[in-house]
């Protein structure tokens, strides 16, 4: 029972275009969501987050959208660059985590940005 799902294992986009990565969750108690990026042979690095009191958060080329009614979030990268090619994980947490910071991760989506 995967509580956080990334249903697209891979995505290929042309340089300069928009990349949209999707994530669905089942637990309506989740109230904080994060995106991490992972290059091969490196650990994941934090990219952007959003609290459930917002529906959008923007940081440079990266924007995360949250649709609570649909239990869906998406990461938009505009414009996409070849250096964005990586595996992207979404993650969620909720009140049940308390102050432990425990996260539930999705399966990951591999993004390839072609020059």
């Amino acid at each position, binding site marked *: 029972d995967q509580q*956080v799902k*990334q249903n697209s*294992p891979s995505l290929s986009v042309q340089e300069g275009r928009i990349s949209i990565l999707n994530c669905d969750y089942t637990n309506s108690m989740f109230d904080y969501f*994060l995106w*991490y990026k992972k290059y091969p*042979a*490196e*650990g*994941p*690095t*934090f990219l952007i*987050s959003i609290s459930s009191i917002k529906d959008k958060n923007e940081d440079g080329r990266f924007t995360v959208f949250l649709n609570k009614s649909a239990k869906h979030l998406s990461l938009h990268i505009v414009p996409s660059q070849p250096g964005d090619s990586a595996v992207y*994980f979404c*993650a969620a947490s909720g009140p049940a985590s308390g*102050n*432990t*910071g*425990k*996260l*539930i*991760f*999705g*399966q*990951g989506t591999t993004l390839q940005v072609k020059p």
Partner: protein
Amino acid sequence: DVKVTQSSRYLVKRTGEKVFLECVQDMDHENMFWYRQDPGLGLRLIYFSYDVKMKEKGDIPEGYSVSREKKERFSLILESASTNQTSMYLCASREYGQPQHFGDGTRLSIL
């Protein structure tokens, strides 16, 4: 910058061996975590610790144990390694209210 250091990048062990994976963070973080990453399964939490000598099971603790004797160090122990524990192991630490910071991982192969 937060630095989370995992002692080995690559490790090869034999079935039945006791295996120790070490993780050290330099930012005095309270919370530390051990995950394994497998294709198609994402990151799955094995154990986490919210203080020295305090630990809690994650989603897949079977076959593993942990030790946190000092705040900066969190060790993952495979009591008797098996081939299904071949995986990428990732350690993370976190300051309260902040995102987790990850080490570069240990790719463990059990033969």
